């Protein structure tokens, strides 16, 4: 298990223990994190699991892959320099304590 925190502007943070090997999209859906839908099941087809990785953690999560890079142009909230699709990040021991910011649509 690793601890992941989702920060949601205007709401309480959600912190949960996530089994190693699960994607952070699955983790968000399991923990009812608002605005993270993951509609395509993690197949890089929908861009509904967009998160801003906290800048302190971006070096650890790493940059998006090629397909993910293209899909980040289709997110509801415009991408930032630390944007990722959370279906492409897998919980691992290095990510224990990771902080993600949830993009809030208008």
């Amino acid at each position, binding site marked *: 298990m690793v601890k992941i925190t989702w920060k949601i502007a205007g709401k309480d943070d959600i912190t949960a223990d996530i089994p190693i090997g699960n994607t952070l999209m699955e983790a968000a859906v399991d923990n*009812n994190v608002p605005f993270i839908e993951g*509609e*395509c*099941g993690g*197949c*890089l*087809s929908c*861009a509904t699991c967009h998160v801003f990785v906290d800048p302190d953690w971006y070096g650890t999560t790493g940059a998006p892959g090629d397909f993910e890079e293209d*899909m980040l142009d289709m997110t*509801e909230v415009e991408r930032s320099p630390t944007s990722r699709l959370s279906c492409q990040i897998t919980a691992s021991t290095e990510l224990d304590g990771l902080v993600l910011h949830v993009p809030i649509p208008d």
Partner: protein
Amino acid sequence: MTIWHPSDDGHADLSDHDTFTRGVPHNTFARLRREDPMAWCEGGQFRGYWSMTRHEDIMQHNRNTELLSSARGIRMEDQTYEEYVARRTFQETDPPEHTRTRIRVGKAFSKPVIDRQSEVVRGLCCRILDTALEQEEFDAAALISRQLPMRMLGQILGIPKQDLDWLVTKGDELIANTDPEYTDHILDRDDTQAYRFMPFRSPAGADLFRYAKRLMEERRTRGEGGGVLDLILEPDDGDNVISDVEFRNFFCLLVAAGNDTTRYTISAAIHALACRPELLEQLKRGDDAIWRTAPDEFIRWASPTMHFRRTATRDFELHGKRIREGDKVVYWFVSANRDETRFDRPFDIDLSRSPNPHLAFGQGGPHICLGMWLARMETRILLQELVRRTARLELAGDIEYLRSNFVGGIKRLPVRVIPETPST
């Protein structure tokens, strides 16, 4: 007052299109979910197939494209390899090939791009409704539901207005290729051998291809570009250009998908509002919150795309059944959307349902509907404008269903609309 009760005896033939002319056989799906969730079904004129009916099972398998592939056909129909190659679109591919194509066209259908079209959709909805409501009694399927989706797709693709009615007719011939009202070449009754290399095994495919070629030439002459069709014709990173056949199939896919599915959602929604006046009242009183959840609830309720098929790439077991390599497996999204274990009161419409994990767009897998943001927006705005204009809505005759187990719903919807008195 209930909206609609299924009348099948729990043992309906899912391969027979006639079954669906009485509405979706939900008693059969409920029994299968309960007793036989991976059920072997005789395929009628085709080989038999496995019916997967539970929400949980479809969610688990839909993303597993290595086990259950789209690259050997996605409808119940059996195809030879030659037929498959001649007719395939990116719907009939698996990742990563599928992902590459999808990314090329995805942006044009992404939420931010679609959101920018909302005033265009509203303008279309107002014109359609103002025309329809000139009469008190009319067929809402013909005058409302059938009008909106193709007009909107026409805007997105840059199709001249005068061609839209022709395109609706051709789109109907493609997808409704099992209903004699819409085609002279009924897939399961007539000899369609001559069209086996055409999209949807229909001669409409050839007509649409000629049309698309001419459209693109005219657009090029006028110096227009940047549309969805231009995107798909651009060379990819490896300088590959899609073939004429692939372009034809993609255009037919857009026409078929853009024409048909949302039409049935709109009809199902209007039917529900006519049968349950309190739903109309809820929407009239409702604030922004209800308009965020209501469209998806109507889409769940309608489930216009009832199934897609996959093919097993190796032997596996599920619920005690041995599925063999090459077996067809059908995901019944329409059944998953009534799954009692996933939805509280699945046979009721709850306009505030949230979360609403329905699978009407093929959620849980890479082939999730490309047009889902457009579908949600069209449903929302059409209903907002209808509700605003309507004091009372009643059925004015018997409804009729499309003859199809694939994409379908209410095709005839006689209604009486008592308009809202204009406020002074």
